[in-house]
């Protein structure tokens, strides 16, 4: 089984909830084949965001993709969002069975 596993990247972004639609569009433009969102709350450099109120809620978005796409998306986030928005982003290694499903069409 384990020889069928392929390495892919998982990009995780935690940010203010209002960005959901914009990020979805940006991810698609950057070559991602999908994304998953969960509602979140938390604390960071910009204080406590308790999620009780639309402007005070966070989301947590995951994008499973190949390495070039992940790095491209991360760079896009750094350029376009890091300065002005409440955001944290990180990339990790994961193994998947169907590598084609998470291969960018663009790259």
């Amino acid at each position, binding site marked *: 089984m384990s020889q069928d596993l392929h390495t892919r990247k998982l990009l995780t972004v935690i940010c203010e909830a209002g960005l959901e639609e914009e990020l979805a569009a940006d991810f698609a433009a950057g070559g991602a084949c999908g994304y998953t969102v969960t509602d979140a709350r938390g604390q960071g450099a910009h204080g406590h965001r*308790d999620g009780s109120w*639309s*402007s*005070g809620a966070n989301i947590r978005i995951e994008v499973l993709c190949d390495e070039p796409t992940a790095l491209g998306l991360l760079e896009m986030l750094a350029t376009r969002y890091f300065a*002005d928005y409440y955001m944290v982003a990180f990339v990790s290694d994961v193994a998947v069975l169907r590598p084609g499903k998470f291969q960018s069409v663009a790259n």
Partner: protein
Amino acid sequence: MPFEPVILFFALGLFAGVIRSDLKIPGVLYESLSIFLLLAIGLKGGIELAKVPLASVAGQAAVVVAVALLIPLTAFALLRGPGGLVRADAASIAAHYGSVSVVTFAVAVSFLARTGLDAEGYLVVFLVFLEFPALIVGVILARRDAAGTRWGHLLHEVLSGKSIVLLLGGLVIGWIAGAEGIKPLDRLFIDLFKGMLAFFLLEMGLVVASRLGDLRRAGAFLLVFAVAMPVAAGMLGIVTANAIGLSTGGAVLLATLYASASYIAAPAAMRIAVPEANPALSIGAALGVTFPFNLLAGIPLYHWLAVRTHGFFA
């Protein structure tokens, strides 16, 4: 002076937040209640609108919206000049104060009902048309060159925002169906309105308590602005109401609309259109100071002023 008990729910929420109670109103309940309030206000307005000639309301609305543009412009000038804020922050705060707060309006309606003063029911139409122009003014003030702004995107964002859609949708449904057609829905949208408002204010108290920390970063000028601006705007509302011939109750409501600062539509729109503005400043001022000020002192003050000055300008 008449006293409005729904305010007590706001105070309870504020108290619970300040003592760091584990009381939390689920975000979903907040969303549900705000959908309810927006729809209900729209429906009531639509029923009333069906009773008056559209043309005369349209004329009044045009004046009300045009005069209201003074508010964000003045706010911007004050915040940028004496306030010393950077352009983006001044513009974003100006947009918040130029737009309106639906819940503040609802509390004013409740307050009026207790005083026995009548008001034109169709004022909800003004509410709808006061919400978004200031947001566009805010963006223009933020970007003089306007090169980078995706106007189409922004206009869509503002006009398809949930508060506009629900208010306007409710208005149209109420207008089409009329009082008779809406009757079976009264049990929910009319009878429960006040209770739902109380519930919502409880939540607002908690939210305001959680934003009080932002005020520390706001600076003295912004704190003074957050009280003085609504008073000035409220007075402008009373003058305008008298000029276009609204009743005393109508003057109280228009004063409240002018005086109130948006904390639903404006934060969402400014975050997208003017991201470099610091939302802690605008939300801290609008929600942390102006919202409670209007509830506790502003509305009674506008009432007192409207009663005192009625007929004076006519």
